[in-house]
């Protein structure tokens, strides 16, 4: 059965993740404990859920750097509602989701209607959504203060599934990864997004409404940032303005490590999922080897570089294979002499 290039790429990433886990597992004994594994999955779920959302935009050939603003804004909105004990948990969650989706919608409008460049617009909208969060922050006589979220049911979201060590957010992350994978590979919307990323001209010529595709991509990215924001606030049981710091760039880096490369058309939800897992295992493992943050930063940078180099090389190989056929330009045919040469 001929393997799709994408599956080859993913098998290799899975291999890397397992290899790294084994490496860390041997060097420190506290790596392969149940508690540590569940913690890895919980840490990975926050940036992972965001990466799933951002992967829609990146596969469609764009980029979304506003994750830190959206996570902070949604977190603060839920904390606001969470403090007023009266609100039932589902209402808080719905408000959070809608807030995230709304931010994504605004991004989408700016890109499709105003034709602004995606890179700088989402970078700026990150600041703007963080500004919304400052608007909602708790204040004691004028000074920003922190207030504990008291809504029990909502807080439980951030904790374990009762009687187990597994965190709700990691389970939701795995489920969402599967759902997003299905959307991206099975539904019409998903196929059109890949087509848009890989060959925009022919997608447009096949009568696909490109603006609508991009808009939905951004709305989903915003929605997933909202989900991540909800889980983080529930876990922290208080919302500070530092929520979601540098998530915008992290999410894009995680996607890139997972094969969902800028430029579009490449990679899918599984890649984003593996990228997140890869990064968090790296950090968690490095932690155990040497607690000093400098080593972690250096390795985090190097690993991203290696992943990107590998990815660029892999894609070049695929292209080289295609062009080698075309380059052998046609040699001329049998002389026409064979044709009746008379008058």
């Amino acid at each position, binding site marked *: 059965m001929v393997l799709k290039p994408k599956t080859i790429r993913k098998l290799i990433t899975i291999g890397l993740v397992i290899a790294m886990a084994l490496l860390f597992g041997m060097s420190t004994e506290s790596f392969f404990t149940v508690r540590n594994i569940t913690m890895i999955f919980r840490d990975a779920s926050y940036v992972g859920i965001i990466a799933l959302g951002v992967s829609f935009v990146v596969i469609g050939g764009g*980029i979304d750097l506003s994750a830190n603003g959206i996570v902070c804004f949604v977190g603060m909105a839920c904390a606001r509602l969470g403090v007023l004990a009266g609100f039932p948990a589902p209402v808080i969650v719905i408000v959070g989701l809608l807030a995230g989706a709304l931010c994504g919608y605004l991004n989408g409008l700016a890109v499709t209607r105003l*034709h602004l460049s995606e890179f*700088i617009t989402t970078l700026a909208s990150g600041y703007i959504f963080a500004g919304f969060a400052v608007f909602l922050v708790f204040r004691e006589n004028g000074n920003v203060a922190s207030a504990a979220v008291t809504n029990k049911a909502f807080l439980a979201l951030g904790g374990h599934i009762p009687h187990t060590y597994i965190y709700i957010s990691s389970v939701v992350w795995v489920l969402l990864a599967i759902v997003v994978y299905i959307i991206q590979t099975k539904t019409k919307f998903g196929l059109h997004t890949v087509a848009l990323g890989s060959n925009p001209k022919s997608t447009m010529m096949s009568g696909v409404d490109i603006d609508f595709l991009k808009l939905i991509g951004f709305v989903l990215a915003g929605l997933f940032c909202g989900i991540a924001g909800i889980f983080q606030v529930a876990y922290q049981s208080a919302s500070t303005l530092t929520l979601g710091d540098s998530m915008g760039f992290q999410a*894009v*880096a995680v996607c890139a490590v997972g094969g969902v490369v800028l430029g579009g058309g490449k990679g899918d939800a599984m890649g984003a999922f593996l990228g997140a897992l890869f990064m968090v295992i790296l950090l968690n493992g490095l932690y155990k080897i040497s607690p000093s943050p400098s080593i972690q930063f250096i390795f985090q*940078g190097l690993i991203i570089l290696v992943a*990107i180099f590998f990815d660029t090389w892999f894609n070049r190989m695929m292209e080289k294979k295609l062009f080698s056929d075309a380059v052998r330009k046609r040699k001329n045919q049998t002389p026409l002499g064979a044709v009746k040469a008379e008058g």
Partner: protein
Amino acid sequence: MNAEKGKFLKAAGSIWGQRVTILVAVIVVMAIVQPRFFSSGNMLSILLAIAFYGVIASGMLFVVLIGGIDLAVGSEAALGGTIFTMYVLAHDMSAGTFFTAFLLAILVAILVGLLHGFFDAYLGMPSFVVTLATQYALYGLTQYITKMNYLPVLNASGLFYQLGNGKLFGIPSPVIWFVILAVIAAFVLKKTPYGRRIYAVGGNPHAAELVGVSSKFHKMTAYIICAVTASIAGMLLVSMNMVSSYKMAAGYEGPVLMALVIGAVNLMGGEGSMGGVFFGALLVGIINNMLILIGIDTDYKEFVQGCIIILAVAINVYTSRKSQGLVDQKRRRMPWLNRPKRGAPDG
């Protein structure tokens, strides 16, 4: 033909026209709300505030012009400043040590620039993610060599002290450095073959190759220039503060990118001038200054900056599209929309 000619003059004229109108608007508002804005002290404080990322912006412009980007400028500045300080602390305050330390920091910057250039030009890796990775790596490296400590310089004197705190005709030395580097950058880009070829490589790499311009060489040198300016900014900062820490200049890529975008530099490459970048940096400084002087609740500083970027980008996109008559682009992109009404005469 004259209509076409008029339209472009107006468009080109209008970019600087816009900038002058914005400045006039600021002057009018401040004259009413807070006349103290015009005091020489305040002007100097604005210039000092923007000097550091202004220096970096004039280097980053080269990278953006060739179609790349460098998100690691903050870490490069911190690394440059730290190496500069460590060498001086390890030796003495003499002029000789100052120059060797200065050159050492520049050398390290050149190395980092070579690395970025190699990844982009020879390996074809996307500069956005590469420089994001080196940002982490260099931040960790600076942390490692300083063992996470501050390096205060208590007995600063001589050239080390003058670099950051010296004054020339009352103008602080970082501002002078910014103006000098901006002028050099503008001169190189406008007046020298190298500068013109940077635009060529950014505009159309294939055509550049056929005109004898090696895009690999120009990409490498652009990243080196950016890293060197970042290192210089780091040294200015360290000398002014007389203390160096690995966290210094963290996140400087934010205001630098803002200055470029407000200065109508096209992040895709090939378009943008040093004059625009200077104006962009100045406007960023003025806005931050106005926020304080007018007394807007500074909790919303970043929010206001975000809105201004979107506004600047929208204006640039609108004017450039209008001058190319693309505003009704939807019509052209989707020809099936221009189906004449049934029965309407054709064409």
